[in-house]
């Protein structure tokens, strides 16, 4: 989320959705390292016994690298993993800091906060969050962190599903499909979508005016609302997301 909001244009967000699967390809290769570790038989090697005892299967990749690579490359590979821990930790702590500052501190405690005060609070919160994470690891068993991370995913998904406000009997199955995808949409097709695209941007500038426009559209074309399969529900959802 933070990464997406920090990009410079709509276009670059879209392009990223297209080029990010490159990472998934790399991930497939990374996953294969697990099989390589099995084939290399690292688990049976006495020099890695202590590592496997301390970290379980998580030690498979480091053991494989230690066995297969010369020392200088082990340094590079391990640095890649360690730096790979720093980057997300930094991004996530910043995301937490932004959330706290904007939606808790400014909203409930200090609505008149100046930009500088906002920023100072965010910086401090980013430190606190990292301390908290450190406490997790040093103070609690690792398994807790994994379980809580999984729970975290579940919590986030809960907030993602926003219900259609109409009573259930007034919704069609395609409405509910779009609903389940977590997007709230307007009834009505808005003249084949062209308006749908523009009005999002207009809405951002003149919310009141365009809300009226949208509301008018809702009544103007009820025949576009109901019926239709998943595809149409999805299309409609796309056209009419983001603003209400």
């Amino acid at each position: 989320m933070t990464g997406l909001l920090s990009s410079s244009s709509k276009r670059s967000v879209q392009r990223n959705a297209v080029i990010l699967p490159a990472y998934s390809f790399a991930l497939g290769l990374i996953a294969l390292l697990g099989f390589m570790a099995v084939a290399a038989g690292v688990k049976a090697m006495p020099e890695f016994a202590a590592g496997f005892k301390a970290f379980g299967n998580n030690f498979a990749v480091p053991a494989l690298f230690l066995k297969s690579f010369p020392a200088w490359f082990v340094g590079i590979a391990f640095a890649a993993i360690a730096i790979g821990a720093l980057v997300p930790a930094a991004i996530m702590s910043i995301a937490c800091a932004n959330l706290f500052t904007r939606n808790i501190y400014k909203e409930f405690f200090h609505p008149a906060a100046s930009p500088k005060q906002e920023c100072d609070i965010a910086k401090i919160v980013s430190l606190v969050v990292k301390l908290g994470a450190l406490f997790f690891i040093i103070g609690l068993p690792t398994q807790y962190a994994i379980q809580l991370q999984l729970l975290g995913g579940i919590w986030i998904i809960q907030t993602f599903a926003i219900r259609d406000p109409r009573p259930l009997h007034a919704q069609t199955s395609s409405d509910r499909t779009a609903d389940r995808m977590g997007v709230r949409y307007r009834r009505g097709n808005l003249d084949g979508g062209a308006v749908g695209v523009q009005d999002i941007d207009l809405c951002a500038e003149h919310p009141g005016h365009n809300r009226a426009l949208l509301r008018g559209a809702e009544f103007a074309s009820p025949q576009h609302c109901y019926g239709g399969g998943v595809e149409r529900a999805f299309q409609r959802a796309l056209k009419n997301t983001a603003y209400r």
Partner: protein
Amino acid sequence: MTMNPIAVTIFVALFVFVTVLGFVAARWRRGDLTHLHEWGLGGRRFGTLVTWFLLGGDLYTAYTFVAVPALMFGAGAAGFFAVPYTILVYPLMFAVFPRLWAVAHAKGYVTAADFVRGRFDSRMLALAIAVTGIVATMPYIALQLVGMEVVIAGLGIPMTFTIGGIAIPDAPLLIAFVVLAAYTYNSGLRAPAMIAVVKDALLYITVLAAVIVIPAELGGYAKIFASIDPKSLCWRWANRGILVRNRRMRRSVLDRHWHCCFIRIR
């Protein structure tokens, strides 16, 4: 585990390099760092490529690098779940996020909860989203430390330092996190964005080397796959459900087959 001086030297050198980069990042695409959108969103000035590195850095982490192969190592092919799991997000991202970005840009939203606040006009809903986000992210940060712990131990660096007779557990982790905290505080989102480029370069080099060098040492991919227990190529976790269904299906297929034979014999 014994400490290898060459590996440790290169590891530490890269770590120091990245730290310097983290502090220098404050000057990159310079902005007024006393504003939240400058500190916390890099001034919304990252182009396609930097965003790609940043998102990649956020999605593919140390824990991924360690835990996904670990799952393949222990549980077998089930570990591949991670690949489709990551791909699921992209179509949604393509469809919905450009809009979200446009609205956030026009209205100066910094967080997802800001958007919820503006759209649904509810402070409490925004609060709920913010709290969920914070509580759910914390353990994920902690998990990154697990990945780091494993490689530090793999290098043979002792985890407990004794300074002046007082033993400090997990000292390398503490040092790494204090350094991280310092440059995040100083440079905001610019620091991880810049470091993410280095991290991914290293990561891709490592993966590329690994998928070429290791199979060559082990005698090729065919040999690697041959050494895997065939049972672990199935999705063992789901076995119970699938097996029952399969058995029922198999039985019905067999029944029909028997039936045919029976008719033919008769």
